[in-house]
């Protein structure tokens, strides 16, 4: 038995469907915890609607949010994966198919000529981040990145002499400026790097790929994550900006060694509806979705 394009496409379509319709367990559990601790009645009401909506979406197999996002694939491509050359094309086919059957909202728009492509594919869409790894399997995390939580993304080229203060200032300013717009409670990712695009890419990875409740393996960074998460929640913006205890479900930091003359800081947010799913497919066509999702 060997891997066919159909196998690969079916795997990717299912990965997209699961991400779009069934909230990951770690996200759902943190929303449940937020509901338990929140005592602001309006915030609690909206958290209740969030939980109910998530459960209903999983039960009915419908997209959790109508903004089914820009499709992003984080890929660990085995160097000997048989369909490595065809992967991009098959992924595009999978996005087109998922658009029809899940269904997804067509979200690819030409910024100059204003036409929507109608099928979520287009120039540099889907967006791929591909790492080459040993072996012949393919591991993929699909993320549906919503526009509402993407709009408040922040990049600041800090002054190196100000050190970690650059991060504190950029973080707090970004969260206050964003306010209710990214559908809090949000998941926050912070990237610190040499280069502007590096910082943003690392911030996105920190926000989208790190499990809720998991701390950075470096204990000093883990402590910073906890302090910053606490600070964000002290701002009191709360669920949908109505005030309350929970503005952020979690906060993760990822960093690269920086250039002596730069201190690039990026803040990425994802809304409460973190639509991500992970799976793998082998060179003989076996595949599995490995991430855990609610069943509704």
């Amino acid at each position, binding site marked *: 038995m060997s891997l066919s394009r159909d196998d690969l496409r079916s795997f990717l379509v299912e990965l997209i469907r699961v991400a779009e319709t069934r909230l990951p367990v770690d996200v759902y559990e943190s929303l449940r915890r937020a509901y338990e601790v929140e005592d602001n009645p309006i915030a609690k009401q909206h958290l209740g609607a969030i939980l109910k909506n998530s459960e209903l979406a999983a039960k009915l197999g419908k997209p959790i949010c109508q903004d089914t996002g820009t499709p992003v694939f984080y890929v660990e491509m085995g160097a000997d994966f048989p369909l490595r050359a065809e992967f991009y094309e098959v992924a595009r086919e999978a996005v087109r198919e998922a658009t029809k059957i899940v269904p997804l909202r067509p979200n690819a728009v030409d910024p100059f000529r204003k036409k*929507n492509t109608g099928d979520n594919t287009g120039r540099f869409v889907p967006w791929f981040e591909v790492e080459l790894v040993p072996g012949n399997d393919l591991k993929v995390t699909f993320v549906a990145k919503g526009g509402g939580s993407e709009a408040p993304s922040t990049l600041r080229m800090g002054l190196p002499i100000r050190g970690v203060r650059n991060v504190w200032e950029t973080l707090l300013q970004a969260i206050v400026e964003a306010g209710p717009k990214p559908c809090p409670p949000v998941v926050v990712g912070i990237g610190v790097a040499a280069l502007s695009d590096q910082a943003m890419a690392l911030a996105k990875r920190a926000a989208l790929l790190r499990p809720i409740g998991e701390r950075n393996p470096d204990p000093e960074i883990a402590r910073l994550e906890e302090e910053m998460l606490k600070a964000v929640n002290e701002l009191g913006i709360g669920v949908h900006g109505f005030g309350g205890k929970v503005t952020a479900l979690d906060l993760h930091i990822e960093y690269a060694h920086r250039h002596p003359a730069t201190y690039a800081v990026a803040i990425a947010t994802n809304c409460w509806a973190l639509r991500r799913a992970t799976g793998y497919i082998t060179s003989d066509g076996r595949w599995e979705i490995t991430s855990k999702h609610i069943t509704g």
Partner: protein
Amino acid sequence: MANVYHLRTPLSEEDVRKLRVGDTVYLSGLIFTARDAAHRKILDIIDRGEQLPFDPRGLAVYHVGPVVRKKNGEWEVIAAGPTTSARLEPVEHEFIAKTGVRMIIGKGGMGAKTAEACKKYGAVYAVFTGGAAVLAAQAIKRVVNVYWLDELGIPEAVWLFEVEEFGPLTVTIDATGKNLYDEILENARRKAQEILSRI
């Protein structure tokens, strides 16, 4: 003390002037969707002195780009949670003045110009839970019509929906011009300064 209201379109000025920030509303009747492109389109038509294909007076405008599907010739709404209203702040006051809508439904808040128009013309801004797209779709009983679909595409076309008990909607700007988010965001700004001074 916050109140709960069950309202039906067409909304009268009296209906909306009694609402206060923090109140909960469940809305029934007709609502129409309008995002960025639709706001422009509708205002252009009105400015040219032409007729709109439907009467917006007393209705609610809903900031949304829905997921819809055609099934047996009928439109089915699959998911319809709100989009970020802040993008429409530059034109919303003009939209309220010229269309006669009495409720704007969205999420993420709106600003001072919209609040001023709510006070002047008798309208409110209410928030539906962002991302609760399936819940919203359940309240939409029927797609009455869709306008400019080919020109604007599914997310940006104007959809006319018949809704039943659409909510809970949280009144965030009321017709006295009060904006619930003002105080919360002012406190957040102050708190941020406080935290930074401790570092």
